[in-house]
């Protein structure tokens, strides 16, 4: 499998990998997985004033999945909640040139971010 330079860059720079401190105000989290595709992704986001202030991720998967999770975390920071909710991981990760057989992993990344909103909504009910 060949990987482009953008994939190498995001795979190599896992600055946003990990967790946010427990008890951080505005913390939401969500995860998604696909055992067939062998990918698991988790995001933790800090929302303040309708803006994603911090985004952290964890990921198990191939280099494209790792790089895409990292790229999406970078993209999320500073976005409004409305923008973040409309995440199109395929568009955000276009420069990673994820091969077609791996595009399902990007859907799981979107699912993990969407789970943050779902869990938050459930928590607010």
């Amino acid at each position, binding site marked *: *499998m060949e*990987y482009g330079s953008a994939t*190498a860059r995001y*795979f190599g720079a*896992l600055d946003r*990998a*990990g*967790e946010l401190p427990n008890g951080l105000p505005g913390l939401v989290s969500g995860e998604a*997985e696909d*055992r067939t595709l*062998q990918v*698991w992704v*988790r995001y933790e986001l800090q929302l303040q004033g309708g803006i994603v202030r911090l985004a952290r*991720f*964890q*990921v*198990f*998967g*191939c*280099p494209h*999945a*790792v790089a895409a999770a990292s790229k999406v975390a970078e993209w999320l920071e500073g976005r409004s909640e409305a923008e973040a909710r409309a995440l199109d991981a395929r568009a955000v990760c276009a420069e990673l040139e994820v091969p077609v*057989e791996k595009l399902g992993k990007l859907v799981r990344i979107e699912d993990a971010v969407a789970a943050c909103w779902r869990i938050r909504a459930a928590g607010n009910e």
Partner: protein
Amino acid sequence: MSDHEIYLDYAATSPVDPEVQAAMLECLRHEFGNPSSQHAAGRRARRLVDAARAAVAARVGAAPEHLLFTSGATEANNLALKGVLRRQRGARPHLVTSRIEHKSVLDTARALEADGVEVTYVDAETDGSVDPQRVAAALRTETSLVSIMHVNNETGVIQDVNAIGALCRDRGVLFHVDAAQSVGKLALRLAEAPIDLCSLTAHKVCGPKGVGALYVAPRTLLAAQLHGGEQERGLRAGTQATHQIVGMGRAYELADPELEAPRLSALRDRLWRELQAIPGVRQNGAADRRAAHVLNATFPGVDGESLRFALRGVAVSAGSACAADSPEASHVLTGMGLSDVLAASSLRFSVGRFTTKAEVVQAAAEVAAAVNRLRSAAKSAPAWCSGSGF
């Protein structure tokens, strides 16, 4: 090879030894003759081919006249399987092989199935061995051939080809062995072994790619798969690639297991000692019956593709290079009972003639750092990512 790359993928292929290069260059520069020609240039080329055949034969304990040069072990495997089974007439012929053979045997078996041959794929044990009793149980009166590899290319596990060959002899069944990984690591005595056909290659032992051989025991009949000349006893038509054959001959002269195997196993064992510092790491394949050069290890909780990508300074593989483009988990490891996730979390390390102790120590440190980094990025991952709870 880049200056900074530590090459631990000798089971995939190996760098050409300078002595082999010199022999090949000498041939390319001065001996362009066709070995089948009767003039002086042809006769000189013929002598080079004969000398190389004798060198290969000496290394594998066979008579030179029982070796046919091919383009490699893949062609040799094709010739052995198709050559035997396509000679069969009448009743539907039957082939027995195992689920953990190299792709060049398994794909050939599948091609034969499409032609009407019945194939039984024997399961492997969890230690990577093929139990001779399972092979015995698979034999039928119409079985024409059994094909079992000597050294598994992914785990290095040595199969008991003498026991399997003996039971084939008892039942009057031909026995083919793919020995692509054996030369230089194990002493072969083909003329004394209960083996009728044996595939060999040059590039795993610091010889050139594109040349191999098939050992054909006396009275073993094959149908040629290439037509167009009487070269190689009429079983492999085509002008012999003299320089390649010369390279194989020199490579086999140099590939002395008594000299190489102890050093290779010491390097492999040192690598394993260093890797054991990584929590949860485990070896795949019976440690007490492995060829000297291969170590297959699983790193639970780490995706193997990501691990290989993280190890850009260390050349290792997930398994067979011949299946590297496939997204499927290693059929050898899953055939030994590993889950797809664990099989995908595994790496094959293989050492060779030019590997140094410093390199294996450095490689192990780089693997440990990469595993640690990837595990840190998946700290809360569910159990299935580590191969449990699936």
